[in-house]
């Protein structure tokens, strides 16, 4: 499948929006991802909800593909990386990080991230306080209401928008949502839902299909 990305120049930075629901920040050579919700499948299964295990593999496949394609210096996870207390999926994820030794992995903690300090400190993951400033950008899990950075990038919302067309056509699609001073990333993880937002005419919206990112107007 051919993948189509979109380029966005924002607050002096060049961002590439990828249909795997990630942003590549060219100047920083950094990959930004939000809301992976790893461990959710195991968490559900432990409670007696029969989710197929293979769901997890899709997360790994997409993550590995992004790491191989962009070869980033850093990966920033904007919160809700892990949807559970410790389970075996965390160890799988640590293995995956070990296979990319030149990459720095950092996590801005989200509301679902409740692993113990020990679990983090035994891994290669850097833990960052929310919000975390990188250049003119402010990285956070929760969208920041007021800030003095040029721009805030956040997750948490799992944004989607509705589109309508002739013949009473309607669609709901996940999206990248860029407002005046805050941009919201789509949720990366499989088996996560989405919330419909209603944008204003000034917002920049990029909807996501399986293979493409498309600017919506």
């Amino acid at each position: 499948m051919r993948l189509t990305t979109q380029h966005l120049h924002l607050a002096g930075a060049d961002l590439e929006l990828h249909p795997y629901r990630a942003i590549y920040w060219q100047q920083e050579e950094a990959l930004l991802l939000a809301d992976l919700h790893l461990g959710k499948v195991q968490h559900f299964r432990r409670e007696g909800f029969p989710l197929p295990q293979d769901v997890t593999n899709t997360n790994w496949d997409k993550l590995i593909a992004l790491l191989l394609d962009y070869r980033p210096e850093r990966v920033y996870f904007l919160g809700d990386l892990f949807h559970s207390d410790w389970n075996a999926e965390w160890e799988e994820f640590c293995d995956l990080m070990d296979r990319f030794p030149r990459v720095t992995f950092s996590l801005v903690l989200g509301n679902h991230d409740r692993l113990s300090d020990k679990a983090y400190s035994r891994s290669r993951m850097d833990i960052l306080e929310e919000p975390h400033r990188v250049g003119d950008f402010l990285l956070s899990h929760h969208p920041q209401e007021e800030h003095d950075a040029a721009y805030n990038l956040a997750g948490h919302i799992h944004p989607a928008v509705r589109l309508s067309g002739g013949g009473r056509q309607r669609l709901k699609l996940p999206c990248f949502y860029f407002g005046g001073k805050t941009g919201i990333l789509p949720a990366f993880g499989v088996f996560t839902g989405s919330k419909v937002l209603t944008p204003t005419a000034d917002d920049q919206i990029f909807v996501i299909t399986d293979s493409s990112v498309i600017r919506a107007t």
Partner: protein
Amino acid sequence: MQQQALIQRGTDWFKQQGWTPFPFQMEAWQAHLDGYHGLVNAPTGSGKTYSLGMPILLEFLRDHADDPGRADNGLRAIWITPIRALTREIQGALQRAADDMGLNWRVAIRSGDTSSSERQKLKRKPPEVLITTPESLHLLLASKQYEKYFKDLSTIVIDEWHELIGSKRGVQIELALSRLKGFLPKLKVWGISATIGNIEEAISVLMGNAGQPDQYKVIRANIDKRIELETILPDTIETFPWAGHLGITLIEKIVPIIKAGQSTLIFTNTRAQCEIWYQKLLDVAPDLAGIIAMHHGSIDRKLRDWVENALHEGTLKAVVCTSSLDLGVDFRPVENIIQIGSPKGVARFIQRAGRSGHQPGATSQIFFVPTHSLELLEGAALRQAIEEKALESRMPYIRSFDVLIQYLITLAVSDGFFPGQIYEEVVGTYAYRSVTPEEWKWTLHFITTGGESLYAYDEYRKVEIEEDGRYKVNSRRVAMRHRLQIGTIVGDADMQVKYVKGSRLGSIEEWFVGQLKPGDTFWFAGRSLEMVRIKDMTVQVKRSKKKKGKIPSYQGGRMPLSSQLSAFLLTKMDQIRAGQLNDIELQTLQPLLDVQTERSHIPDRSEFLIEYFTSREGHHLVFYPFDGRNVHEGMGSLLAYRLSRIQPISFSIAMNDYGFELLSDIPIPIDEGLANELFSTRNLGQDIMDSINSAELAKRTFRRIASIAGLIFMGYPGKQKKDRHVQASSQLFFDVFRDYEPHNLLYRQAYDEVMTFQLEEARMRQALERINQQKIILSKPIKATPFAFPIMVDRLRGRLTSERLEDRVQRMKLQLVKD
């Protein structure tokens, strides 16, 4: 005691009440006392309760002639009824007879309303007769040592079986019966059912593998009620709306009927319609304030009880209601019945007509209020259908793996179960007789490992297999969650509506609440309410003075027209074409029919009408099979799918009971379609399957399945936060099963149910065969016709596309905040 003398005691008791037993009642006593299973085929209000209540008492008198007055006799009989509203009537009737006959018996109720201390009491000391619902019976099967609790059980009665059979609660009954019969070989199983089109099948389903003709008796009451139908006609058809479903325009004509009668029941089809009619009645006739009430399934039990009592006492002039008052004992003071909008089925209409308290043999009158012009046709069709007694069938659910999974976990929660034994019982039921050993194995696997692929580190925990081979739930959390889940066969995800101060008003669907913000006003239970906040699955409200407010709509509201009724619609169309306007309804419709003829065409039996025209919205292609909205939904998706293979195109699909519309933003290749066997039954199964996929129909059905099988957990009042980490929508489950586990039986069940119940595949195939015999009339009117209009304005639409998502997005616009 001799049988004859026993029956005499029953007759004597009847005489003391000033009654004489009907022949069917005595026939039932005899059959029961002889040890048969059976079914009593009798309508409500015919004395059916005593047809089986009496022999249960007589049997005890026979078997304990030495000391009939002794106490604590264990649980002798269970009486299952689908709705709680009926329980108290039955309790009163049975307790009175038991007392009079010198038995020291307790007749008790156990339902969702029973307090937990009362339940504990019933548990410790079983009553002789327990009146309960299918869910509550399953809850008993989920408790420890249930076999001991049921050990004295001699009879189980399934009341209103015609209601239960067409639902998954019917399947719950089949499973519970299979278990009870498994350890109580002498248990007598009896059903009570009104007449339905497939009464023979209804008996087979109830009896399961005990269904040998020499093991059961069918007893027919043969009580006839004559029904007279009067359609409320608009003064001028020209100003009567072409579309709509409320019927408010005729409200002025209803008021005199209400005022003239002692008491009137007004049946509406949806809860939203019920709320609106109640309000509007008060608007046009303020003097009715205080003497009319409303009644629907989302209103709190206490309020409903109050309404029912007032109806019995004759203190209410009118009650606006929904199907919530379809069943149950008659309200003697009720004189008039009014039906707003199409009742969709003949049997339902007859049932409602019979709710007035007339003596058997007398004529019931029912007024039919059409909500839009074409619905007048239905008045005429209904009259003929009633004359010809064309009653609908109730199709039983089969192979419901969701209910089976729930049942097996129920057994695992109580004392655990051994698969070999339970398998024999399960395949002895009608619903599961075709379940293969492989499918059974899959089911066991599903509840123990949660799917097939096992990883070394998997922590899946639900049902565990003990060393002796017993399947058992050991986790208290899983057990607790499961007990809460058992009730979900009935309800969707509903939220409680309560005043801030605490008193309950009822419940509304979660998705409606999602549209409300604090401070918004909405109408519920006839009151204007302001939403204050949402807390722990409860909507807290206070009284509002505002007149305007949203009205909750409920997604379950849209019933399809039955095939019986649609057959008579076709007959009426034929009569119109032949100029035989014998019915007053058809005469009234005449001017509208003239417009239809002028703009397009009225088909007779040998023709099939398609209309193709353009409007600002796009290109409309409208088909008129008159087969009911279910068939139309399926046929709409099928034809959209076939047309979309000719060229990339996107459709939105709307339907009503008369026809369906395919709407597109680009011209529709209908001529190519017709040239390429658009209606062919060749490759039908596969094409339907593909169109279901494209139209995402199965997703909706899967929601119910997922909640019954316990995949999704709604949380419960007070505990919501704690379990948020395991809440996920059924849609997510559906997607992962489709992508990762397509042979999952629950996922496949969604398709089966869509085919059978939603699209009514069998009926659709017949319809297509009929169309293939008909002459296709492709009419191209310059604007919308009276036939097309009510379909076009429907906003609830299905969608189907063969375009690439990326291409569609390019032509679409973002929905922005409105200024």
